[in-house]
């Protein structure tokens, strides 16, 4: 399927989401271009995770429209699967499969979903593991690796499906300080290679270096959007200023 309007990769239009009576997202609009890197930040509970989890239907939005690479997200299971194939996700807690080796973690989805044969899946998996610089750990189990290594495996696992979009939900928040850089380096390289990315993070150094646009969320709404330069030097909104003063 081709895109409707040229270079748009993800469109959120008036997306709202409730957990019971609590509104977690309030009419969120966001458009992400092909190859664009968007960094999302905001205080805890502001709906950052909820927003990106709606994009691959880990959460179901209640109102509005979400279009991914020209496919509108609907309740149809096949439609959801199609979108999930194009969207990779990296979680704060890595969520590697502990009963599978690193290599099997990476090859599972390509073999089951993309129906690649074992040889091809293994070869591609090793490519991705080299890309995240841990090919030598391929035959170990996830729990035998350090946190930073595990998160890089998680990135390789997502990349192995050859997605067009990568979502990162606080990928470095659960890591010890000395391991954060090795993961951010991998993410930065990925951004340079032209991957479309939405990154939820509080690593402002990374944001400054990599983001094309910054999105600031609070209380389920997108409060401010702008280039990093604008965002860090003279934010418009009072809430943004306040948040930045706390975090920088």
């Amino acid at each position, binding site marked *: 399927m081709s895109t409707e309007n040229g270079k748009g990769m993800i469109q959120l239009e008036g997306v709202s989401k409730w957990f019971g009576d609590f509104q977690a997202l309030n009419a969120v609009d966001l458009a992400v271009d092909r190859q664009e890197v968007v960094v999302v930040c905001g205080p805890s509970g502001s709906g950052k995770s909820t927003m990106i989890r709606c994009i*691959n*239907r*880990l959460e179901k939005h209640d109102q509005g429209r979400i279009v991914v690479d020209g496919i509108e997200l609907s309740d149809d299971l096949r439609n959801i*699967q199609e979108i*999930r*194939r194009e*969207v*990779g*996700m990296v*979680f704060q*807690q890595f*969520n*590697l*499969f*502990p*009963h599978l*080796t690193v*290599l099997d973690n990476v090859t*599972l*989805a390509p073999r*089951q*979903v993309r129906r690649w044969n074992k040889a091809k899946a*293994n070869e591609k998996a*090793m490519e991705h593991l080299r890309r995240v610089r841990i*090919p*030598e750990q*391929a*035959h*170990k*189990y996830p*729990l*035998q690796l350090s946190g930073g290594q595990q998160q890089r495996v*998680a990135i390789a*696992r*997502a990349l192995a*499906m050859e997605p067009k979009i990568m979502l990162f939900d606080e990928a470095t928040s659960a890591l010890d300080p000395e391991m954060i850089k090795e993961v951010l380096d991998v993410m930065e390289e990925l951004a340079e290679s032209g991957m479309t990315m939405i990154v939820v993070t509080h690593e402002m150094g990374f944001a400054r270096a990599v983001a094309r646009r910054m999105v600031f969320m609070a209380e389920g709404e997108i409060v401010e959007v702008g280039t990093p330069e604008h965002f860090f030097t003279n934010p418009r909104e009072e809430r943004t200023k306040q948040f930045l003063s706390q975090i920088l």
Partner: protein
Amino acid sequence: MATRIDTLEPIPAPERPPQRRLSPREWARENLFGSWLDTVLTVVFGLVVAWLVYRLGKFVFVDARWEIIERNITNLMVSRFPRDELWRVWAALLVLGPSLGFGAGSAAAARRREAEEGRAAVVPERASALRRLGPLLLLVGVLLWFAQSFQATLLTLAVGVLGVAGYLLGRRVALSGRRTALVVLLGIAAAYVVVTGFGGVGWEDWGGFMLTILLAVGGILLAFPFGVLLALGRRSSLPVVRAVCVAYIELFRGVPLIAVLFMGAFMIGFLLPAGVERPSLVTRALIALVLFTAAYVAEIVRGGLQGVPAGQVEAAQALGLSHFRITTRIVLPQALRTVIPGLVGQFISLFKDTSLVAIIGLTELLNVSRNITAQPDFIAQGLIVETLLFAAFVYWTGAYWMSRESQRLERRLGLGER
């Protein structure tokens, strides 16, 4: 074999903390006679244990009249199974030995490979192979001792030799886990066909220990998948499926096994439409055991399913895996690992509970050991103690072996290390 793309350095053996060596004397002083209370307890319990061991030992080795077992060993093993078809049982054992041996060998090879690749703890295997089979070897030894038959000893040795040959072959060939399981299952199926097929003896005519094994192994093989399905059904998103599973589980967990066995014996016939042949009593007993055990398996597995973090499912969903694949590849493997101890406990119960089928008239091991005391040569001589002791010993070796294997499996899968 998994492709080895990298070259791993061999991993040095982990250093062990220095061990404090105690002489037996020091050990005793520290553990048995540490205080005056310890001393009193040690002496009292020592005397009680010594007295019990003495009485039991005296009975087993001096007073007991084991000729009732010796004369009835075939009855105890197969009961009403036709004697001129007994060769089929031996033939089946000659098939089972090598295929089970092959399975064990192939699994051992896979484990060794894992250890060599540095992904699993190295378990010293060689010495423990004999120890692992200890309880079973003890059982076989005792049975042969009672049988006092040159032929039986020879055939048993042949089974053993073929088993070892299968083991060595298995280590050589080293199939993948799934193929190994297939070979073992094929072996079991072939052994079954050897006994029942081609004019053989259907299981309605099995008896004794052989029937016990049939009910236990058949019960485990059927109740396990059924129970897993029930556990999954209980978490289904379809309310009807969920309700049916919950109702089933709660119903069968609320009824004693004896009642289920009686219902199986007398009601399955009613429930079938007219004209359909009524299954044999053995089949009905097996169905009852499976229905009952599955409900417990379901509850045990449910505990395991609940322990799998939501993040695992989310990560799999995000990768685009289907619901079915997520269940079979991600959730179940992790859930089942954690519930191995509970499952094995349930299977040990099932093994022992097969003795309850005696009350619906099946002649399994325990029933035979009661019946033989009524033989003209032995009646009214109080030999029930000998026969019950024998039956208890047979059950104990089986149950103890299962329990030890489960502990090993647990250790190997590194439970509690997370």
